[in-house]
C-alpha cells in the first residue's frame, strides 16, 4: 500500500514539475501575493503579522489550485494512460492518495517560497512565531482541502479546462458564495453558512488561534472530497 502510494506520488510530482502550467501558476501566485505583501504589509505602521498576507493567499489559491490539479486525472483519461494504471495491481484508493500527495507536495514547495516574505519582515519587526506557525499550519490544511476539491473536479472530466473551472466553481461556492449569502440571510442561516465557509474557518489560523474545530473541518472536508474522487474513479469502470 505505502509503496504503491509513494511510487504514484513521485510520478505525480514529477509530472507536475514537468508541466509548464505549474510554473506559470506558481509565478502568477507569487507575483500576486508579493504585490499584496508589498502594498499592505510591508508599509510603515502596518500590522506586523502574516495575517493579511495569508488571507489574501487563501483567495488567490481558489483559482490557482484547480489549475495545478486539473491535469491530474483528466490527462490520464484523455491520453488513455488510466487504462494502463487501473489494470496494474494498484487500488483506486492508492491512485487517488498518490495523486493527492503529489500535488500537495508541489503546493507545499510553493508555500515555502512565500516564507521569503516572512524573512523580509523579520528584518523590520519582531514577529510572534506562534502566530506564524499556526498561520502556516492553516495554509497547509487549507491547501489540502483545495487540492482534494481540485482532484475531485479532475476526476469528473477528460478536459483539463473544464476540470479547472469546476474546481474553482466548487471552491467558489464554499468561499465567496456562502459569504455573500450569509450577508443576505440572518439568524440560523447565517450560522449554518458560516460553518461551511472555508475562508471564515481559516480566519482563526490566520490570527494564530489553535482551533480544533477548524482542524477537524479541514481534515474531514479533505477526506470527504478524496472519498468522492475514489467513488467517481470506481463508477467510471461501470459505464
Amino acid at each position, binding site marked *: 500500500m505505502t*509503496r504503491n502510494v509513494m511510487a504514484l506520488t513521485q*510520478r505525480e510530482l*514529477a509530472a507536475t514539475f514537468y508541466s509548464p502550467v505549474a510554473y506559470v501558476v506558481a509565478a502568477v501566485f507569487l507575483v500576486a501575493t508579493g504585490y499584496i505583501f508589498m502594498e499592505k504589509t510591508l508599509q510603515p505602521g502596518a500590522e506586523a503579522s502574516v495575517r493579511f498576507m495569508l488571507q489574501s493567499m487563501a483567495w488567490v489559491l481558489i483559482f490557482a489550485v484547480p489549475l495545478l490539479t486539473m491535469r491530474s486525472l483528466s490527462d490520464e483519461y484523455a491520453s*488513455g494512460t488510466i*487504462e*494502463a494504471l487501473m*489494470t496494474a495491481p494498484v487500488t483506486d484508493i492508492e491512485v487517488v492518495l498518490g495523486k493527492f500527495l503529489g500535488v500537495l507536495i508541489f503546493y507545499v514547495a510553493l508555500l515555502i517560497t512565500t516564507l521569503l516574505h516572512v524573512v523580509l519582515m523579520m528584518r523590520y519587526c519582531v514577529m510572534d512565531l506562534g502566530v506564524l506557525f499556526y498561520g502556516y499550519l492553516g495554509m497547509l490544511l487549507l491547501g489540502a482541502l483545495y487540492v482534494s476539491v481540485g482532484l475531485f473536479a479532475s476526476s469528473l472530466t477528460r478536459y483539463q479546462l473544464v476540470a479547472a473551472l469546476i474546481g474553482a466553481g466548487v471552491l467558489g461556492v464554499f468561499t465567496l458564495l456562502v459569504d455573500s449569502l450569509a450577508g443576505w440571510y440572518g439568524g440560523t442561516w447565517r450560522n449554518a453558512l458560516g460553518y461551511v465557509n472555508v475562508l471564515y474557518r481559516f480566519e482563526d489560523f490566520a490570527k494564530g488561534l489553535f482551533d480544533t474545530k477548524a482542524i477537524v473541518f479541514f481534515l474531514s472536508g479533505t477526506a470527504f472530497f478524496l472519498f468522492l474522487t475514489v467513488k467517481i474513479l470506481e463508477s467510471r469502470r461501470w459505464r
Partner: protein
Amino acid sequence: MRPKTNMIHVQNLTKNYGDRRAVDGISFSIQEGEIVGILGPNGAGKTTTIRILTCYMPASSGAASIGGYDVFTDSMAVRRIVGYLPESTPLDMQSRVREYLVFRGKIRGLDRAARDAAIKRVTELCWLGDFIDRPINQLSKGMKQRVGLADALLHDPKVLILDEPTIGLDPTQIRETRNLIQELAKRHTVLLSSHILPEVEATCQRTIIIAGGKIVASGSPAELKERIRGGSRLIAEVAGPDAEVKKALGGVTGVTGVNVHSDNGWHRFTLDTQRGEDPREHIFKVVKDKGWSLRELRLEVGSLEEFFVQITAQQMQEQRAARKEARP
C-alpha cells in the same frame, strides 16, 4: 510436462453500454501455453472482452477467470499475473523510457534489485537499448509499441494480453513484433486481438472469430480451413469434345456441378465438389482413358480471408435486419 490447465476461462460473458450490447454471451477457454487470437471487424467486441479480462471494467453478466482467479472478485491477483498492452499503447508522455519502466516496476511490487534485473531483461527482449534514456514523446509509433510491450513483460506475467499489437506499425515492424510474440509464447500464455486475418493466421495456434459481440467460429487455422472446404472448387483445363468431356467429368464421384468456358480448343471446366472430397485423381484417370489432353488440374481451397469476410458480412446483415425490425 505438466498437465495443461485452463489459464483463461470465460463463461457466458456479456457487456452492455447503455442499450448497446457490445459483448453478447461469449464463452471460451485458453489453456496454459497456448497462443490464441481474437479476430473480428472493428466494433466486434474485442477490446471490450479484453478490458473485462484485464479488470479494467466489469462485465454486465457472466464470469471470467485467469489463472483460477475471478477477474471481478480477485481482481488484484489477476492483475499480478497478467501483462497487458492496451490498444493505443498509452504511455506517460512526460517521462523517459527508463523512468517509466521504473515506475511500472514499482507499482507491480518489484524491489530495486528485481526491478533493475527486469528492466535489463525487457530492454534486451524488446530492443529498447537504443532509446532507453530518451523521452517517450520523442519516440516513433513502433518504438512506443515496444515500450508498451516491455512494460507488459516487466513482471514476467503468466498471461500476456495484447490488444491490436501491430496496429499502426510498418511492415518490417509488424514482422519483428510477430516474431517477438511467437518467441514470448514459449514462456507465456498469449491472447491477442486483431482485425487483420493474416496477422492471426501467422502467429496464433487458435483463432476465435467474433462479430457483433458473438463468437461465430473458432479453431486452428487448419480447422477453420477445413470448415470452408465445402465451398471449394476444382479447375480442370481439358482439350477434347466439350459436351462429351462435360458429361464424363460430371460423372466422377464427388463432383456436384460442372461449368465450362471454352477458349481456342481448350475447355476450362469449373467443378463444384462435395465437402471434403478431392476427386483430382479420378478426373485424371477419366481424361487419360479417353485420350484427351490435360494442361491444368487444380483444387481451389477457399481462403480464410474469404471465410472471414463471408461470416462477418453475414453477421452485419443480420444485425441490420434486426435493427430494421426493431424500428416501428
